């Protein structure tokens, strides 16, 4: 009897926490002036070397905040090495980039600007281009004392990104007490999500994004070349560890995984069952989970709509 109690105790303590998943807040505080400037910059191709690529090129705000290709294409058709993660709700992630090498949005934002296969620009180039624009000059001067600087550009973009949250997903409404907002199938999917153990890693306000986990606990993935977190920490224990991605808006952000190896959501669910849970999921289970994941698609924030 004591054994049963012990086991139950473990299970309860591990999973019975109702607050394991949390809804997004309706609004967040941000500096509107800066965010508007950041939005303009986010859409501005002048941030790239050949004026062809803007932030939005790979983080499509109207399609889940990510790219539709496995890996994005940079300046001059250069092929990137990794799938672009969504920019939505990125502020709730434990770290930025798949390997978490940027601890926050500020660190992340400068990465693509100077990456030769992404925007391939330089600090001097960007500032020179932007300073030619009188409107930018005036706006920067108005907000920042020192005018157009890289620091200020990044600050504005980050302020914009902070505003990018997608509240009011069906599932959030469910969490907020609207029991009817999910269909039976979706509810079943949520139960499976918990019972199968997906929730072990995909939890928190972003339903993921708060830990690093080994990609392929039970099964080595096919493409084994990316060492993930190890590249940042150099710790052998971190080999093939990646940031657990947020599942919010996951229905919109295909393809999936760091290498974009899963093209559909079903494929991704199936692979996750095999790689991470050591289980072969039935098609019914996969359908239900997919239905559940669709309820995570939130509303595009007003700042993007305008």
């Amino acid at each position, binding site marked *: 009897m004591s*054994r049963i109690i012990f086991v139950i105790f473990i299970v309860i303590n591990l999973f019975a926490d109702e607050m394991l998943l949390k809804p997004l807040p309706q609004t967040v505080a941000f500096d509107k002036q800066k965010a508007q400037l950041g939005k303009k910059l986010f859409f501005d191709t002048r941030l790239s070397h050949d004026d062809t690529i803007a932030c939005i090129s790979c983080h499509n705000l109207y399609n889940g905040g990510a790219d539709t290709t496995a890996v994005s294409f940079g300046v001059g058709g250069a092929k990137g090495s990794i799938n672009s993660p969504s920019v939505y709700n990125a502020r709730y992630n434990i770290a930025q980039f798949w390997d978490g090498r940027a601890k926050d949005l500020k660190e992340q934002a400068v990465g693509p600007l100077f990456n030769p296969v992404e925007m391939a620009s330089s600090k001097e180039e960007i500032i020179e281009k932007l300073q030619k624009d009188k409107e930018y000059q005036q706006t920067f001067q108005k907000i920042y004392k020192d005018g157009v600087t890289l620091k200020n550009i990044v600050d504005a973009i980050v302020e914009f990104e902070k505003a990018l949250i997608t509240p009011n997903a069906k599932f959030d409404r469910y969490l907020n007490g609207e029991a009817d907002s999910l269909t039976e199938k979706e509810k079943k999917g949520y139960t499976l999500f918990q019972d199968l*153990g997906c929730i072990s890693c995909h939890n928190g306000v972003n339903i993921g994004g708060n830990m690093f986990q080994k990609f392929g606990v039970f099964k080595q993935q096919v493409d084994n070349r990316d060492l993930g977190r190890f590249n940042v920490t150099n710790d052998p224990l971190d080999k093939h560890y990646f940031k657990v991605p947020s599942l919010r808006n996951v229905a919109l952000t295909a393809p999936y995984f760091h290498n974009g190896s899963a093209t559909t959501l079903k494929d991704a669910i199936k692979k996750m069952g095999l790689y991470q849970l*050591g289980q072969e999921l039935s098609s019914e289970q996969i359908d239900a989970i997919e239905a559940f994941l669709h309820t995570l698609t939130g509303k595009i924030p007003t700042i993007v709509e305008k």
Partner: protein
Amino acid sequence: MKEILKFATLSVVLLFVLMFSFYELYDSAKTEQKTLELTKKIDKIKIENLLLGNELFYDFKRQDYDKLNTIEKQLIEDWQKFKIKVNTSYLNKEKINTLINDIDHSLQKQEKSTRHYESTKAIIANSVLYLLKLNQYSEEENKLSQMHTLENSINNFIKALTYFQITKSQKDKTIAKILQQIDSFENLQSNFNVRLIQQHLTILSNNIDRITTILNSIKKLSLDKKFETLEQLIDDAVSTERQRQEKLDKVIAFFSLIMLLGFLLAFFKTYLDKKQIENLQEENSQKHQELIAHMHLLSEYKRALDESSIVSKTDLRGIITYVNEKFCELSGYTQEELIGKPHNIIRHPDMPSTIFQELWKTIQAKKTFHALIKNHTKSGGEYYVDSTVMPILDSHGQIQEYFAVRHDVTELVHAKERALEAEATKSRFLATMSHELRTPLNAVIGFSQILMYKKDIQAEVLQEYIKKINLSGNHLLSLVNDILDFSKLESDTMELHVEETNLAELFDEVVMMLESTATKKNITIIKEYSQDVLLVADKKLLKQVIINILGNAIKFTPEGKKITLGYASEQKFHHLRICDEGIGLSKEQIATIFNPFTQVREHQKEAIKGTGLGLSISKKIIDLHHGKIEVQSQVGKGSCFTLLLPKEILL
């Protein structure tokens, strides 16, 4: 003053520079304080964090992770701030930095460990879940006893993994045993995947090991101790810094004191200087006043000198450069005529040239020359000056010019001359006197001796001798009387007894007294005056005067001639006139007849009968009456003596 101002400004600037530079240090001291507080804060958080990680292993929920993440994030943020503060502080950071790097490293490790812990726990949870479900499947198969055994085995395995350190071989053995149990099951459901169970068991085994390792590694980091050490190090550094600042304080205080002293000194010096200047100014103004007073005095002296003396200056060649008014007044020259001329312009030809040679010799030897010098005026007159000539020396003792002060002593010289003459008169008087007195005495003594020694003297002769002795005695008496009168008059002891006197009576009395003598010489005395003229005079003395003059007139008038007594009343004076037709007097004689013992030589024979004092006495008496005696005479034709007596005698 300017230097003091410069010094003051420089001091102030220096003081400010010092103040500001040291202010930075003061500021840093505050930073140290804050740093210290921050250390304590971080330390507290860290301890809390470790407790969470260590003891609530199975009780760790998602919200605990979130909390842990928040705390950790805050910790890292605080830690970064703390590092910046330490780096920008003035502390000696050698040891601190080493420790900070160590803690930095440890924090990163701990953060990483936390992540691993989280991931590992997710995997364990997943496997436990799977294995528990296996239990459910078994129940469905109604093979309870067998399934219970399996369940027990799995539970024991998890328990062992969780609470006891078991070796790898033991684990493998246990896993093999569990798998054997599964294998022994009959008709296992297709869901029952032995390979999968084995994998989960292995994952469980490995990951629980891993969690233990992670926790141990966190323990090994011993962040608590490191923070304690850091705190201690910072405490030490801060106290060292404080000591250094105390030293700096002393230095600042010392500098401030020096500067303050400098200021005080400067101000004191300024004050002293000011005081000195004031004193000097006061002294100066006093001296100025004195100088003005002196100058005034000098000008007064000059004025006094100019008023009293004849002043002139010459240059080294004797050319006149200055003369005062007195000089001009006396010499009759104007300043224009004198200045630029040699001084001998006024030199009197009487003066011997040797005296001037002597003058130059003396003054060129820088001595003062005194002499009585006779000069002449422009118009040819002469005057005497008592001269003092001296060289004026400049501050080097060189002769600059010559200065002469003279006093007009013409009067004095003349007085002296007169005095000398008076002296001569006196000698003459005494000589005459002795002669005059001796002559009658000789007669008295001679005749009286004859009478004494000659017995047989005839009566006639005797009579004649006695007569002569008597005559001589009378003469002597009158002589002595005259002398007494004269000396009385001379010594101004004679007093006037003024009374109203009838002129006619006076004249009559005198004529009566002298009529016999005149009659002897057959001289007629004519009276030409009215009876009722009244005089106010000393009757006795006036009578004596008239006797004298009339006596003289009778004496010097030849026989048969006339003497006229007349009177005229003029405006202020009574004019009493006594005119004779006698021998008369020359002008020279007139000038001397009033001197005592003066007798007209040519008439010595007649005059022998007189004392020679008569006219002198007469003149004195008339003088006493403030009157005058006027003499008009023509040699051989006669003389006319007029007595002028004032109508109103003022006594």
